[in-house]
């Protein structure tokens, strides 16, 4: 049964979002706490986060979450005060609580039907705290509101200003039921309610004191509000656990004569209490606005259209300029067009920036993952995360999470040795898995590196041959790094037996195809005995791509630059045929030659008979002989073993940032086509899906069979 609290759906959404961001923060911080037990700031942050969560869940009346966070807070409070040292038991208990909180969140969101019993978690927390009853907030005598006012001229000025505004000022005194379990929560609710009704000039305790559990069970407040006292009283009494509420017109009581020294130092906060937000904030949430991704996408599409129109206007303006050199209006048009172009470029860039998220949003999940995996497998592993601030398009971020998880699991499972093994090898007992992100030109590099046993090329060769991935003789011809790259071949798994951790051999090839589908690439570098490094190279965004525009067969196509290895004139190559099909030699590389125009014409034809193939070969030879065409050498990816193919094209048109549009249905399989873009003249150009094109078009010839074998 899903939970249903009696709050409006909008409030629930806000609450869930808040819970989400706090849980993310806690996830990260609690793991950090294990290694940085002395970091007071970190402890404060965790305590505050748990506390905020308690406050918010109290507001929506979610008692299970309040209970849980309350106990977390107790425990953290002791640690914070130094009466308890951070132990692995404490971290475990906190992590267990986080899992519990996540489950509660899911229950509330309606995505989980289970009803979590928080009692065992609370028990664990109490065991971890193992001591006497939680130290309650000191309920010491607090100075009355008049004393506070006396000591604070800013507040007095605020009070005078409020009085001058015409609204009556009320002196409000609220007392809580002494049996109330969550006094701070209730006091917070009271102050929060008052904030919503008028200008809260001052209160004792202040909102901040309440947040810090220095509240007691009574609050005195001055509120400037044009509300009837009866209505105020009714509203206050409606809050749970509020026992008494008195409202009277404020009259200064001997304010001037009270010595200033009585004023508590925190009173300053009172001046902005009236404008304090309804919920306490944590720093990472400040200064941001949440926006629906769909809305953002609409804006980005519109900007994409502007980018296209900008180019168009510029073209028209240029034409007019050359036609009417002396015309004043045409000159103005040209200037305006230039200005529009600048503004649109900045706009476009800013919009793309708005889609960017720091990779930290996914990286923050990994410390927990590694900790759990390591614990399961009884290994000792430190995860080092670097470059969390590196920003990358959200569409990419969502797609790379699973591949990275897989690589990390792989490192923990296969890469890192057990502690005993490491000691025997003279390595440090604790292994390190390093996850880093950094920007390169036009792309982001993410590396997952471990200092484990590395990948043994001999073993890989054996397994590959055994599994029929590659022939024995081909295996012998591979260099060690080529052999290691075989782990990306479909169906390849090196684990002698599969484990719970990294699954059943459906791993690396999926990682590779996923990354390649994002126009990225993955490489592996391994030093036997020293470790393995995976490098993911990812585009900054999927929405735009740098493309080489070429024309072939009368159409313009865009080739993503990531696939373009080089562009050469046919004269620079040695043309020949291999097995009746055109091939060429560039420096010492031999590669198949394909005519782009021919290939797209016959794309989708499954296989070609000898005669047809020969005819196609002749046709493309002819085309090359026409003279002014170019050879674009493309590759399927970055690794050395990737297939390289030469595409002949008629013309090189341009090189530019293109906005990727997806192709809808009704277009058949459209193999070899990754999408479309709109050019400056409004024409649609297709974007080539280079790996698919090559796979499609490559009929089995001696040359390509060999290439395929190597690539596999």
């Amino acid at each position, binding site marked *: 049964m899903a939970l249903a609290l009696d709050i409006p759906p909008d409030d629930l959404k806000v609450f869930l979002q808040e819970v989400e961001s706090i849980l993310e923060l806690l996830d990260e911080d609690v793991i950090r706490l294990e290694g940085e037990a002395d970091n007071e700031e970190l402890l404060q942050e965790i305590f505050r986060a748990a506390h905020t969560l308690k406050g918010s869940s109290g507001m929506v009346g979610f008692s299970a979450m309040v209970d849980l966070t309350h106990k977390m807070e107790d425990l953290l409070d002791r640690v914070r005060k130094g009466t308890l040292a951070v132990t692995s038991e404490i971290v475990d208990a906190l992590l267990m609580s986080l899992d519990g909180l996540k489950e509660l969140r899911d229950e509330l969101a309606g995505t989980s039907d289970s009803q979590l019993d928080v009692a065992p978690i609370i028990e664990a927390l109490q065991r971890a705290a193992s001591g006497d009853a939680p130290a309650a907030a000191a309920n010491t005598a607090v100075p009355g509101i008049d004393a506070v006012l006396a000591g604070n001229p800013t507040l007095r000025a605020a009070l005078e200003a409020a009085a001058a505004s015409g609204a009556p000022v009320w002196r409000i005194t609220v007392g809580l039921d002494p049996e109330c379990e969550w006094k701070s929560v209730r006091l917070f609710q009271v102050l929060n309610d008052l904030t919503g009704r008028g200008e809260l000039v001052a209160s004792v305790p202040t909102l901040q004191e309440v947040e810090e559990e220095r509240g007691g069970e009574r609050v005195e407040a001055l509120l400037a509000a044009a509300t009837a006292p009866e209505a105020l009283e009714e509203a206050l009494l409606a809050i749970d656990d509020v026992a008494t509420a008195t409202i009277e017109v404020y009259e200064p009581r001997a304010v001037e004569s009270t010595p200033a020294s009585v004023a508590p130092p925190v009173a300053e906060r009172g001046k902005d209490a009236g404008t304090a937000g309804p919920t306490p904030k944590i720093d990472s949430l400040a200064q941001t606005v949440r926006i629906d991704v769909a809305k953002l996408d609409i804006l980005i599409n519109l900007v994409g259209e502007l980018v296209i129109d900008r180019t168009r206007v510029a073209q028209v303006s240029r034409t007019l300029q050359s036609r009417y050199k002396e015309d004043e209006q045409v000159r103005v048009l040209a200037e305006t067009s230039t200005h529009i172009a600048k503004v649109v470029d900045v706009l476009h860039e800013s919009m793309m920036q708005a889609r960017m998220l720091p990779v930290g949003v996914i990286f923050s999940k990994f410390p927990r993952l590694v900790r759990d995996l390591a614990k399961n497998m009884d290994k000792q592993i430190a995860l080092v995360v670097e470059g969390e601030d590196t920003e990358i398009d959200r569409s990419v971020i969502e797609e790379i999470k699973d591949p990275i998880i897989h690589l990390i699991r792989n490192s923990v499972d296969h890469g890192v040795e057990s502690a005993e093994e490491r000691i025997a090898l003279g390595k440090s007992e604790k292994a390190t898995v390093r996850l880093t992100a950094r920007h390169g030109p036009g792309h982001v590099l993410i590396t997952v590196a471990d200092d484990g046993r590395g990948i043994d090329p001999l073993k890989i060769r054996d397994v590959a041959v055994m599994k029929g991935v590659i022939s024995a003789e081909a295996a012998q011809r591979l260099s060690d790094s080529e052999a290691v790259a075989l782990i990306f071949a479909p169906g390849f798994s090196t684990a002698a037996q599969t484990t719970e951790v990294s699954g059943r051999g459906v791993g690396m090839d999926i990682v590779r195809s996923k990354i390649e589908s994002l126009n990225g690439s993955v490489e592996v570098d391994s030093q036997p005995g020293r470790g393995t490094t995976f490098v993911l190279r990812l585009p900054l965004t999927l929405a735009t791509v740098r493309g080489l525009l070429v024309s072939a067969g009368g159409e313009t196509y865009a080739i993503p630059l990531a696939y373009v290895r080089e562009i050469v004139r046919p004269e620079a190559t040695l043309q020949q045929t291999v097995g009746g099909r055109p091939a060429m030699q560039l420096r010492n590389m031999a590669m198949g030659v394909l005519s782009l125009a021919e290939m797209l014409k016959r794309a989708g034809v499954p296989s070609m008979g000898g005669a047809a193939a020969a005819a196609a070969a002749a046709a493309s030879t002819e085309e090359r002989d026409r003279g002014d065409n170019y050879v674009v050498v493309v590759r399927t990816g970055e690794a050395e073993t990737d297939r390289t193919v030469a595409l002949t094209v008629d013309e090189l048109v341009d090189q530019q940032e293109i906005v990727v549009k997806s*192709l809808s249905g009704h277009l*058949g399989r459209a193999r070899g086509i990754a999408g479309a873009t709109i050019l400056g003249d409004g*024409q649609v150009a297709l974007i080539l899906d280079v790996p698919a094109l090559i796979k499609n078009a490559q009929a089995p010839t001696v040359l390509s069979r060999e290439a395929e074998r190597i690539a596999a």
Partner: protein
Amino acid sequence: MAEQGTGERQLVVFDLAGENYGVDINTVREIIRMQQVTHVPDAPEYVEGVMNLRGSVIPVIDLRKRFGLTVGEETAESRVVVVDIAGQGIGVVVDAVREVLRIRDEAIEPASAVITTADSFYLQGIAKLEDRLLILLDIERALDEQVDELRAPQRQALAA
């Protein structure tokens, strides 16, 4: 199929290979002149390619080819009727767009009464106008990708 309560419907009427067709105006997003179309390799034969409709890339379908009719020449009257199918725009090339008509439901005969081929499933009916017959297309079905080939509706003599 008729609009509830009104007893009549509004149709966009276009020409295709000398016959008159009508599609529900609610499915028509706009009507534009022929645009430059980019050919898409590997696409079904009846797909002309893709075109730019104010920043989105939409497929363009030649309805003559879709119905297996003789291939026509593009003329100054040729138009692209952009229809909305499940929120997606699809351009349909027709010989000419004639008019927008209101037709009372009584004027519509079920297609099966007039047409004997099995392809009548993409027809909503036949409307009898004073001087001619109007074939009412269920454009959604007519453009259904799952259906490989459609034959043009064969009209029987109705004069009797």
